[in-house]
């Protein structure tokens, strides 16, 4: 019996460690100690912008196209082609963009953080930072979290715009069964500014979790290159689970009790 309980016990212990790590990381950021290394935070922001923006916007654009095409054909099949904008509004904003953002962040940024910081750990670079009198937690982890806070909201909102634009192209320009004005009438009817805020909150919670998990597994990596590889895989699994958990909770909290849609009076 004890053997079967060992694995869940380890998971709970690991989650506890991650929670403590997250608390310390937030403490460094919101306690403003991270601003001692603001230059490094800006550098990390630059890395995020240059390394991830095009990838995410491209992903968002492609998913926007798909949402638009499938929404348009589905609505035509039920005899309501003018309502293709509903799909674009809901699919793009509420679900696809947060999930796409979460997946992209997990696969590119999260694993990159584990690999980079983990490699620094096993090559004594983190110890080298410490013995130079520099807090490695602040310099490596808090700066990356701050960089994520500085960059990702703008990247996310722009990605939502890319998705909307792609849906418009698919519905109005490619399939063409609804006019531009008709598309936008329904499109704006089924969303409002708070929805954008809620979507942004979902995406940012995902991003924060992913950065925390990535930096945690990198910072605590051990066991040489194999250990870093194992930590990278673990972070990917946990991040994938967390992305769906945050996505589900976000939908339940923001739209579960109230669809925020002009349906049914």
């Amino acid at each position, binding site marked *: 019996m004890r053997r079967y309980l060992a694995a869940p016990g380890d998971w709970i212990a690991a989650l506890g460690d991650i929670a403590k790590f997250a608390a310390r990381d937030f403490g460094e950021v919101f306690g403003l100690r991270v601003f001692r290394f603001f230059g490094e935070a800006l550098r990390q922001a630059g890395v995020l912008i240059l390394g991830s923006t095009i990838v995410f916007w491209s992903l968002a654009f492609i998913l926007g196209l798909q949402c638009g095409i499938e929404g348009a054909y589905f609505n035509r099949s039920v005899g309501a082609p003018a309502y293709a904008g509903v799909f674009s509004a809901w699919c793009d904003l509420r679900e696809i963009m947060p999930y796409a953002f979460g997946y992209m962040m997990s696969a590119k940024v999260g694993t990159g953080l584990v690999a980079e910081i983990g490699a*620094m750990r096993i090559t004594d*670079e983190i*110890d080298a930072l*410490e*013995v*130079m009198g520099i*807090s490695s937690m602040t310099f490596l982890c808090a700066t990356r979290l701050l960089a994520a806070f500085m960059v990702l909201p703008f990247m996310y909102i722009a990605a939502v715009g890319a998705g909307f634009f792609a849906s418009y192209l698919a519905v109005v320009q490619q399939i063409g069964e609804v006019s531009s004005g008709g598309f936008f009438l329904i499109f704006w009817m089924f969303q409002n500014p708070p929805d954008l805020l809620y979507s942004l909150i979902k995406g940012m919670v995902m991003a924060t979790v992913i950065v925390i998990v990535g930096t945690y597994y990198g910072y605590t990596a051990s066991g040489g290159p194999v250990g870093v590889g194992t930590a990278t895989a673990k972070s990917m699994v946990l991040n994938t689970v967390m992305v769906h958990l945050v996505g589900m909770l976000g939908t339940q909290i923001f739209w579960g009790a109230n669809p925020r849609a002009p349906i049914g009076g």
Partner: protein
Amino acid sequence: MIDDRGHDDEATPPSGYEKPPGEQETVQWESPGSQPTRESAVPEPPPTEQDRVPTPWELQQQQAGQETVAEGQPNPVGGAETQVEDAPARSDFEQANADRRAAEVTGEAAPPSGADDDEYKWHTDRTGRSESAESDAVEFIDVKKSFGRNAVLNGLNLGIPDDQISMILGPSGTGKSVCIKHMVGLLYPDEGDVLVHGESVPNMRDDDLFEMRKKFGVLFQDGALFGSMNLFDNVAFPLRQHTDKGEDEIVDICTRRLREVGLAGAGEKMPNELSGGMRKRAGFARALVLDPEIVLFDEPDSGLDPVRTALLCELIKEIHQENGGAYVVITHDIMSARRVAEYIAILWKGRIVESGPASELFNSDNQFVRQFLSGEARGPLGME
């Protein structure tokens, strides 16, 4: 300064050098109370049967009732120096032989392995605080440290004298690197205390600890250069983080330090473009850039060929002569110890076996120390 000079010490050939049979440096293990003699490059009469300690291979043969290797004759398996390596079933008798070897060299029956007295019978160093502790740069006081069930430091008492090049020597896995990590507060002792210039490291607050660490420069085994920065930025990093110096002054300091370690033209290179020796020298330059009071070297000779090891040792000596301070070198390379050490401490089983000025240690009566410093297979230290 790194240059292309060779060895200037005839008595310290580079590791890997093998003297001809007639010149083999030997240690004679004698009966207790007598002074073991160590002779080099001097023809000597062959040792008699009485004062010669049998090797594990010979002991195994004796045990099996077989013919012992004839005195002065080559072993059927191999030469005298390869007997231990070639012994086919060493693990079967290693513990018994360790006790037996100890009994041979001390002239008394070895107590059972595991008994505390037996385990530390060669540890003749002080067990309390030394008289000169006040002037030591770093001091360990009864430090104990375990990782799980593995006790690495077990009541360590050690003082690192200021303004000297000290070496902590010891067999692999005896806690030398753990010592360094205690000095800079990367690890804390389970029991005991570590003092740096009289201040207790485990009792420091985080801010004080980070401030204290600025006294240190540390050269890690592989240099630990930051992979995202070029060599110049690596060396400049501590200056940019901890000082208000202008960029021109930083360039001057870093250029001088890089020139000192023979890397004047390599500032733009990334760490992955450098050889192992260059990375170590770059790490050395970075460790020195804040003019630290204490410089720690974690196995600076690991992975280097004998010539580059010799050159790095020369560099350490030269820089120490220029800058002073307490230099602590962790190694198990005896050649390096002969080249640079002014003070030596030998660590084994979590405690100091013996420590003192290098000249005293190299003439020590302690048979463990003599075995270790001469690199002999025969003696108290076995494979266990």
